[in-house]
C-alpha cells in the first residue's frame, strides 16, 4: 500500500531522516514511535510532500509519489493530520468539513453553485459519525483542543483517503478523551478499510491498536515489527530507559 525506500533528509547538515525504509500493507496499522526529535514528523512530511527528500523514494499503491506536491498526494488518496492541529479555525465546523468535501469532489473551481447548501447530507453524516453534529455552527477555533483534533480528523476523512497519517492524534488529551479517540480510530479503520500510520508518545495507545510498530531514533529505524517483539527489544528498551515503556 505504502512503501518508503532509503529515505534521507538533512537540514543544513543535520540529518533528520536517514536510510528509512519500510512498507505498510493494506488495512494495517503502523505506529511510528521514538523520543522527541527522533524524526517522526519529518518522516510524515516527507511522505506527504511537505518536504522533499534528499534521496530515496515514496510509493503509494505502487506509484512513485516522491517529490509530488502535497495537494497531488492528497488527491491520490492520502489524508493526514498535523502535530500542531491544523484546521480552518475561523470557519465553522460545518464549513471545515464541507470545504474538504468540495475539494475532494473537484468542485474547487465551481463558481456558480452556491456553496452553503452543497453536500449538506455528506457533511452532516461525517459530523454525525465523529460526534461533532452538535458543534456544526461553532467556529472551529473556539472548540476545545480535543474538539479541534476531531475536526482535523473529520477534514482528513472527508477526502476519503485510503492511507491516513496522524501525527500524535491524542497529544494533550485527557485519559478519557484518549480512550474515545482510540475506539473511534479503531472503528473508522475497520469501517473504511483504511491503512493507518500514526506517531504517538503514549505507549498504551500504541500497544492497544498498532499491528506493527516502527521505532525511530536519531532519524533511523532501529526496530520494526510486531508490538510484542518491539517491546522486548533490548535496544528499544535502552532508548526508552526511564521513559514510558512498560
Amino acid at each position, binding site marked *: 500500500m505504502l512503501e518508503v525506500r532509503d529515505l534521507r533528509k538533512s537540514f543544513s547538515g543535520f540529518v533528520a531522516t536517514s536510510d528509512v525504509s519500510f512498507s505498510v500493507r493494506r488495512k494495517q496499522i503502523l505506529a511510528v514511535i521514538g523520543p522527541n526529535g527522533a524524526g517522526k514528523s519529518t518522516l510524515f512530511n516527507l511522505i506527504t510532500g511537505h518536504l522533499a527528500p534528499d534521496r530515496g523514494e515514496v510509493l503509494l499503491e505502487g506509484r512513485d509519489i516522491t517529490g509530488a506536491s502535497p495537494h497531488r498526494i492528497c488527491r491520490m488518496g492520502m489524508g493526514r493530520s*498535523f502535530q500542531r492541529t*491544523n484546521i480552518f479555525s475561523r470557519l465553522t465546523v460545518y464549513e471545515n468539513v464541507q470545504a474538504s468535501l468540495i*475539494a475532494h469532489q473537484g468542485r474547487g473551481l465551481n463558481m456558480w453553485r452556491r456553496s452553503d447548501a452543497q453536500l449538506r447530507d455528506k457533511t452532516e453524516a461525517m459530523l454525525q459519525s465523529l460526534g461533532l453534529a452538535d458543534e456544526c455552527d461553532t467556529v472551529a477555533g473556539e472548540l476545545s483542543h480535543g474538539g479541534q483534533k476531531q475536526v482535523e480528523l473529520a477534514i482528513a476523512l472527508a477526502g476519503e483517503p485510503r492511507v491516513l497519517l496522524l501525527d500524535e492524534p491524542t497529544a494533550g488529551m485527557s485519559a478519557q478523551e484518549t480512550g474515545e479517540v482510540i475506539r473511534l480510530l479503531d472503528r473508522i479503520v475497520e469501517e473504511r478499510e483504511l491503512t493507518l500510520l500514526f506517531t504517538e508518545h503514549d505507549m498504551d495507545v500504541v500497544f492497544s491498536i498498532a499491528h506493527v510498530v516502527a521505532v525511530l531514533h536519531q532519524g533511523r529505524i532501529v526496530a520494526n515489527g510486531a508490538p510484542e517483539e518491539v517491546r522486548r527489544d533490548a535496544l528499544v528498551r535502552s532508548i526508552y530507559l526511564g521513559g514510558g515503556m512498560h
Partner: protein
Amino acid sequence: MRRQTVTGVVVSAALFVIAATVPVLGSRYYTFVATDIVIFAMLATSLNLLVGLSGLVSFGHAAYFGVGAYVCGILMKAGGVPFLAAWLLGGVGGALLAGVFGYFCVRLTRVYFSMLTLAFAQIVWAVCFKWNDVTGGEQGYPDVPMPDLAFLDWLPWIGSLRSGDKFYFVVLMLATVSMLAMRRIANSSFGRILTCIRDNLERTQFIGIDVRRHQLVVFTIAGGFAGLAGGLFGIFNRGVFPDFCYWPKSAEVLIMTILGGMYSFWGPSIGAAVLIILNQYIVSRTEYWPLVLGAIMLALLFAFPRGIAGAVGAAWRSRDRFNA
C-alpha cells in the same frame, strides 16, 4: 427562500431603487457623484475578492482598472468599436494582464506578493505614461466618446433624460450585473475554497487544493472586473490618464475596501460611497483633504476595526460575511 435571503433581496432592491432615483431627485452634480460611487464600488468590490475573500493584499489593483480604461477608450475612439463590445474587451484586457502578472505574483506570499503587485503596476503606469503613440503618454487619452445611448430613447422616462443621466443608468445596470456576478462567485464553492486559503494555506493544500492555481484564477477574475470598472470610468471621465494606473489610485481603492469592511461583500461599496462623499464635501471646504482624510481614517479604524460594514454586521448578522 430563507428569511435572510429575502432580507438580502429586499435590501438590495431598495438600494437599487434609491440609486436609480438619484437623477430624478437631484441635480447634475448628484448624478456625477453617484456615477463615481457606483464605478468605485465595483472596483473596490473586485479588489475585495482578493483582499477580503482570499487574503491576497494587492497593492497594484489600479493597473487593471487603468488598462481596462485604455482598452475600452481606445477601441471606442480609434477603433469605432461599439460601446458594449469595447467595454467587455476592456474587461478581457484587465483579466489577461492580471493572468500574466498573477502567474508570478502568486508564487510569493504576504508582503512579497503585495510588493510584486505594486512593481507590476508601476511598470504598467510607466508604459502608459511613455507610450505616446497609443496611450497619449503623459497627456493622457482625451475625448473618449460618450456611447450612443439612442437605444434607450424608447423607454418611458429614462429616454428623455440628459445624456449624463442616461449614462448613469447604463453604469448602474452594468455595475449591478457585475456586482451580482461577483457575489455569486464569492458565495460559490470556489469562494468557500478561497476563504479556506485565506484562513489556512497549508491545510487547504492538504485537502487536495492547488492553492496557487486558485489564487491565480481569482487574481485574473478580479483584474477582469477592475478592467470593466475602468472602461466605465474612462467614458465617465471623458478621457483616460496614466494616473488611473498610478499607485495612489491602488491605495485609494484599498482604503475604500478596508474602511468599508473587507470581511463583508458590500463593505467595499460602503467604503467607496463614504470616501467619495467625504472627499467631495471636504475638498470644497479646505485644501487639506489628505490631512482630514488621515484623521478620519484613524478615527474610523479605531472605532470600527473591521470597517463600517463590520460594525453594522455585528449588530445585524449579515449573510454576506466571508466567515471571519
